C-alpha cells in the first residue's frame, strides 16, 4: 500500500460459536472487506463504527485512537470521525430529507444550508430537501443515507453492503458514483461486500476474510492476481486449481506434474523446491482455447472436449475435459468470442494454459 493508512484495525472479539481476530490497514481509496456470509465482515465494520465493543485490540481513525483494549480507551460511536451507511438506508421517517442529512450536525445555522446544498449536489439530490423519505425511490433513499454520512466530512466512510438491496442498474450507477466521490473527497472507504463483481470494480485494497480471520490483505490487483493460498483463490473465483508436484525448478520457470501431464509455470516469486507438492491454478478468463488449428502443440497445450456450456449473458463458462480426464478446466469467454469461435458447434478443442498465467500456491485443501 503506497499511502499511509488512514484507518488501522486490530481487533479480537469472542462470541458464542465465533471468534473474530482481524488486523488490517486501510489507506485512502476503497478497501473492500470480502468474504462469504459469516466471515466476520459486518462484525469487523461494526467494531470500527463502535456499535460492537471488541474484547481487545486497537483501532485508529485518521490518527485518533478510538479503541484501545490495553489502555481501556473507548470513543463512543457518534464521536468517531466516521460516516456509516448500511444495507438499508434507515432514514428517519419523521424528518424530511434535508433534516435527515443534517441530523445531529453541529455547525453554525448560517452554514447549515450551504453545507446541505453542497452534499445534495454531490449526490444529485437537489430539490428533494423538503420531501419525506418515503416518497423517494430506493436508490434516492440510499443516496440520502450517503449524504447524511458525508455531510460531516469524515475522513473515513464505512459501507456495509450498501447497494445489495438495489436493482442491478442502480447498483451500477451508485458504484460508479462512489468511485467518483471517493476520489473527489480523498476518502478512505471500507466497503463490505460478498460480490466479486463489486470487489473487482471498487477495490483499491482487498481484505479477504473467512471464519473471522484475515486470509490475505493487500493491493487489490495483487491479491486478485496472486492469491497466496488455494482457499483465497477459491473465494476470489478461481475455479481451475489442481494438485501437483514440482518436477524441475530453475531460473524463473518450473515444471509441475499434474496428473500425467507436465505444465510449465513461469513465476516471478520464490521457486518451490523440486519434489515439493503445490497447488497450480489459473483464472478461467486466462485460459486460451483454439479451434484446433495450431500446428505444433506447445508444452501447455492439449486436447479437451467440451462437456458443458453455461451462458451468463455477457460471458459464458465452458467446462472442458482432456481425454485422460485428469485436468478438468473451466474457461470464461466473452459473448463475442463465444460467437466468433462458434463454440456451440464443436466439442473438440485445443486448450492452452499460458505459463505466465499459471500460479503456484502451497498445496491446499481442494
Amino acid at each position, binding site marked *: 500500500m503506497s499511502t499511509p493508512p488512514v484507518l488501522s484495525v486490530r481487533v479480537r472479539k469472542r462470541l458464542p460459536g465465533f471468534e473474530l481476530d482481524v488486523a488490517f490497514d486501510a489507506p485512502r481509496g476503497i478497501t473492500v472487506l470480502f468474504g462469504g456470509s459469516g466471515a466476520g465482515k459486518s462484525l469487523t465494520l461494526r467494531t470500527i463504527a463502535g456499535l460492537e465493543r471488541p474484547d481487545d485490540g486497537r483501532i485508529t481513525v485518521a490518527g485518533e485512537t478510538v479503541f484501545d483494549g490495553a489502555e481501556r480507551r473507548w470513543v463512543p*460511536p*457518534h464521536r468517531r470521525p*466516521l460516516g*456509516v451507511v448500511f444495507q438499508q438506508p434507515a432514514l428517519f*421517517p*419523521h424528518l424530511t430529507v434535508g433534516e435527515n442529512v443534517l*441530523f*445531529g450536525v453541529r455547525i453554525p445555522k448560517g452554514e447549515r444550508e450551504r453545507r446541505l446544498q453542497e452534499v445534495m449536489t454531490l449526490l444529485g439530490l437537489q430539490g428533494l430537501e423538503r420531501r*419525506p423519505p418515503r416518497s423517494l425511490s430506493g436508490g434516492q433513499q440510499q443516496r440520502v*443515507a450517503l449524504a447524511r454520512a458525508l455531510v460531516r466530512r469524515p475522513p473515513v466512510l464505512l459501507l456495509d453492503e450498501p447497494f445489495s438491496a438495489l436493482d442491478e442498474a442502480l447498483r451500477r450507477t451508485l458504484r460508479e458514483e462512489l468511485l467518483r466521490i471517493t476520489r473527489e473527497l480523498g476518502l478512505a472507504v471500507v466497503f463490505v461486500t460478498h460480490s466479486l463483481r463489486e470487489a473487482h470494480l471498487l477495490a483499491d485494497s482487498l481484505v479477504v476474510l473467512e471464519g473471522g480471520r484475515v486470509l490475505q490483505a493487500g493491493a487489490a490487483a495483487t491479491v486478485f492476481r496472486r492469491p497466496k493460498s488455494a482457499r483465497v483463490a477459491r473465494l476470489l473465483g478461481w475455479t481451475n486449481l489442481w494438485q501437483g508436484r514440482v518436477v524441475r525448478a530453475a531460473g524463473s520457470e518450473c515444471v509441475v506434474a499434474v496428473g500425467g501431464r507436465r505444465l510449465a509455470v513461469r513465476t516471478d516469486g520464490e521457486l518451490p523446491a523440486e519434489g515439493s507438492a503445490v497447488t497450480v491454478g489459473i483464472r478461467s478468463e486466462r485460459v486460451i482455447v483454439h479451434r484446433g488449428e495450431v500446428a505444433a502443440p506447445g508444452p501447455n497445450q492439449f486436447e479437451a472436449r467440451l462437456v458443458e456450456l453455461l451462458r451468463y449473458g455477457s460471458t459464458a463458462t465452458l467446462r472442458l475435459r482432456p481425454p485422460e480426464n485428469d485436468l478438468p478446466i473451466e474457461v470464461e469467454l466473452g459473448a463475442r468470442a463465444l460467437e466468433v469461435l462458434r463454440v456451440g458447434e464443436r466439442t473438440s478443442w485445443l486448450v492452452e494454459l499460458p505459463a505466465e498465467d499459471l500460479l503456484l500456491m502451497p498445496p491446499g485443501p481442494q
Partner: protein
Amino acid sequence: MSFAEVDWAVFRISFQVAGVATVLCVLAGVPLAWAIARTRRVVVHALTAAALLPLVLPPTAVGYYLLQGLGRGSAVGRFLEDELGLRLVFTWPGMAIAAAVVSFPLFVRTAVAGFEQIEPELLEVASVLVGPWRRFFRVVIPMAWPSLTAAALLAFARSLGEFGATTIVGANIPGRTATLPGAIYQAVLAGDRALADTLAVLSLATGSVVLLALGVLFAQVRRRRW
C-alpha cells in the same frame, strides 16, 4: 335525572387526580418502558413484573398498601408530612398516586409496544450520528409518539374511572376527595337513583370521548408505517 343535585367539584377532583396520575405514569413509565424494550437484563424483568403487579391485584389491596406506606404509620409518610409538609393520605395528591399505580401497567405495556416498533437499524444509525440523549429525544420519542400519547390517554381514562384504590387512600370526602366514581357509590348507598343516573351518564359521556380519541390515535399508530 337531575343536574341540579350534582356537586361539580367531583369533576374537578376526578380530573385533577387523573391528570396528575397521568403525569406520574409518563415520568416513571417512559424511562422504564424504554429500558424494558431495549435490554434483556434480569433486573429489568424483575421491574417489569413489579410494574405489572397492580394489574392482578385488587385495587383495594393497592389502596391499602398505599395507605400503609404513605400514612403517618410509616417512615416515608412521617418524613413527607413532617419534613416536607406533604400530607398524602385523605388528599387528592395521594389519590393521584394511587390512580397512577393502578394505571401504570397499562401505560408501560402500551409504551413498550411503541418503543419496540422502532426498527433497530434506525437506532443504530442514530447512535452513530448523535449521543444517547439526543437519540432518545430526537428519534425514539418522536417515532414512538402516537403510542406514547395512546398510553397516556389509556392511563388517564383508567385513572378517571379508578374507585377502589383512590377511595381507600382518599376516603371519599365530599368536596375534597370524592371523585365521580366515588360520588356514584355515595348516591347509590344513599338511595338517590336520580343522582346516580345523572352521574353514570356523565361518566359514560366522558369515557366515550376518551375512547374515541384512543381509537383515532391507535388508527394513527397502525397507519404510521411510513
